[in-house]
């Protein structure tokens, strides 16, 4: 087991270095944009004196390296500075929305991951049958249609025509957990439809890929029923690629949901990123980018570790 601990520690270290490099890129990309924060705050009509005074006040006259380290030092403890539009702490603005986004992502993931993997196992078992083809066509259709379109279709049928679920997922006041689930069901369902195809097809491919292995033939020649051949003999050896695709899709659920949030007017972090970009609210943009990068790195790390843990050679050394 000691091997695995060092392995995880190594990956974690590499992840931190990657994150550091990304933070440099994020910070200096914003620096490269024409104009600076002072100009953005004061607008077109600002006088030179006003600008100079504000720059002095915001510390913009310091060399960019110094400001980078100040920003990084703050980011490490969760302080991303102040929004230049509203003057609120960035952390305060973002944290609520981040929680909302994480909730929606978790909601979608809890449905999508088991659904996609189960479906993948079933189509692997019934490969090349009508069911396999229909499942493939349906999931591919859902992944190929734009998310906002899927969202509107769901609104049309499930909110407007049958009014089973609300069309707008606003989170106001105190909601019980059940109500919360009911209200956010449509955006979650949209996300489920978007991410299922990927995971299902990878599960199917990873399992079918193994079916030519000698140990699968051995299982068949032992008289193992087909479903057991797939679930007991193929699946445990197919986890590594499946976990990787699952992790990528989970990352997408957190970072790629802007359109869904807009369609359902859901107060998530994607929306605040879009708002911040349009208002040139750089501290918020930087904070969001850093959070997204950390999400990707963390989930990929989790996928790597998961893939390692499913390999019996590493779990049970000689």
């Amino acid at each position, binding site marked *: 087991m000691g091997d695995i601990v060092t392995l995880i520690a190594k990956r974690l270290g590499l992840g931190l270095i990657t994150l550091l490099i990304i933070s440099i890129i994020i910070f200096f990309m914003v620096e490269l944009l024409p104009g600076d924060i002072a100009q953005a705050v004061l607008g077109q009509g600002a006088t030179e004196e006003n600008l100079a005074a504000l720059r002095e006040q915001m510390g913009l006259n310091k060399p960019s390296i110094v400001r980078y380290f100040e920003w990084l030092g703050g980011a490490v403890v969760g302080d991303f500075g102040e929004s230049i539009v509203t003057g609120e702490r960035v952390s305060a603005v973002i944290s609520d929305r981040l929680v909302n986004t994480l909730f929606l992502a978790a909601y979608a993931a809890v449905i999508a991951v088991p659904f996609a993997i189960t479906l993948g196992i079933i189509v692997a078992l019934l490969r090349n049958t009508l069911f396999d083809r229909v499942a493939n066509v349906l999931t591919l259709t859902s992944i190929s249609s734009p998310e906002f379109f899927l969202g509107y279709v769901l609104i049309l049928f499930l909110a407007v025509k049958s009014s089973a679920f609300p069309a707008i997922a606003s989170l106001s006041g105190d909601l019980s957990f059940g109500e919360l689930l009911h209200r956010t069901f449509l955006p979650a369902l949209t996300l489920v439809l978007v991410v299922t195809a990927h995971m299902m097809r990878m599960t199917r491919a990873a399992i079918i890929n193994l079916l030519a292995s000698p*140990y699968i033939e051995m299982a068949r*020649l*032992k*008289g*193992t029923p087909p479903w057991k051949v797939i679930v007991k003999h193929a699946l445990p050896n197919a986890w590594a690629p499946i976990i990787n695709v699952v992790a990528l899709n989970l990352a997408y659920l957190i970072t790629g949901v802007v359109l869904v949030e807009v369609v359902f007017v859901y107060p998530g972090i994607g929306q605040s990123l879009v708002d911040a970009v349009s208002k040139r609210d750089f501290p918020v943009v930087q904070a969001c980018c850093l959070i997204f990068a950390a999400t990707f790195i963390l989930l990929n790390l989790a996928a790597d570790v998961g893939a390692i843990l499913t390999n*019996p050679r590493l779990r049970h050394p000689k």
Partner: protein
Amino acid sequence: MTDMTNNDPMKKKQVLLEIKDLKIEGYTGENWVPIIKGVDLTLHRGEVMGLIGESGAGKSTIGAAAMGYARDGTRIVEGSSIEFDGIELTTSTSAEKRALRGSRIAYVAQSAAASFNPAHKLIDQHTEAPVQYRIKKRLEAQEDAIELYERLRLPNPEEIGFRYPHQVSGGQLQRAMTAMAMACRPDLIIFDEPTTALDVTTQIEVLAAIRDIVDQFNTAAIYITHDLAVVAQMADTIKVLLKGEEVEEAPTEQMLKNPKEDYTKSLWAVRSFERPQKERPKNATPLVSVQNIDAAYTGGVKVLDNVSFDIHEGMTVAVVGESGSGKSTTARVITGLLPPSNGQVLFRGEPLPPKYTDRSKDQLRQAQMIYQMADTALNPKVRISEIIGRPARFYSGLSGTALKSRVDELLDLIELEPSKYYDRFPPELSGGQKQRIGIARALAAEPSFIICDEVTSALDQLVAEGILRLLDRLQKELNLAYMFITHDLATVRAIADEVVVMQHGKVVEQGPKTEMFTPPHHPYTDLLLSSVPEMDPNWLTTLLEERGVDNVGEAADV
């Protein structure tokens, strides 16, 4: 034995498996081509039948068909009949066939390492069939497994089943698989080349274990192999197959003494090739001199320990030993792929730089390699002309027509028609032809020394013999020195001038071939020599009596 004078009247000849006019077709991507062209087979209870033939003869396909199983991409043609104990398998439903598999007909695969699922413990895989068929409860099945492990003389029978496949050695896995096949006490076991992937010393213990257990439970078996000496130990009857058709069938003794068909005779005669042994030239500088080499892979333990031997011009030195004894590592040190941690390699008396990147082109060209798996050693997407042409261009700077005529000359040397093979790709060639291309590629560099790493062990005997004859001819014509890495002592007997025996990364004995094959031997050499199966059907019995059943294979470590 199946003769009528069987002195046990209770053991009547009751037919267990009857295959009639078996035809199997395989899908090539365009159409169905026949693989098995009408084979009949009758197997009685308790009888062991050996199926032998070269690769492509359809042995494994028939073995699988005996379970009513057609591998992916093959199908059993209508009109074939496979009757197992009164049940017609060709017309049974898949559920009916599944009910037989594992419980009444079991299968032992060639590579136990690949056929055990890496994700589950051995004993869980063992108990799967009995629990599935509700023959035994899980715990009962586990106890039975442990008892079978004990009968098959596996070390630590109480504990070994609770390990994962990668934690157990190849020979032990093969025995564990035999135990697994026995789990439901089947009436018939199909053994598909169960010892082909094993070292000779390990092979013996597996053969002994299989024979014992088949005897004890009076199980019928189909034993598939390409090794005549092995089948002679195991089978009551032998059936010889060639390209999906039966050549002949007879009781073992009769088959060994008087084979009727020419093809069978040619199989029996294969081991006849032997070339005269050469003496070392006196006072000559050796072409390659390996001196006190120690080597280890990164961070690992020493795999070579003070290895020294000389190879003289125009001579063949065979390096023998079990897998893991350091034979291939020595080759890697000589070619510079693995710099040694101690010692040096001399070429014509001059030390070679330890790393291949530091060697000059001329030093590099002198030592070439031919690999065991011609399949993986040739890039499947590159034309033959380019595979052979590249080293000729790289080392000799040839181009244009000079290059083309050099490639033609090389193809001529390896006895392949240049106009026919020049533009082909490796997958279009047979195994033997691919190995010839590998030889031509080595020759293209105009070396004085070639390392042959198990070049014949993946080939059928007749094809292997052709390769050995070719190598011998090339040696005479081009005055080549060979380092011949092998675990097959028959090959050593055929072509070697000198022999180096390795064990655990050390040279245990070396000398001219005649000396090595005459006693007294080093105990390890003795163990290796006496472990090579012989055609005599009583060989295994005699050997086990001499050594004692508990003193074979890994247990006989010296």
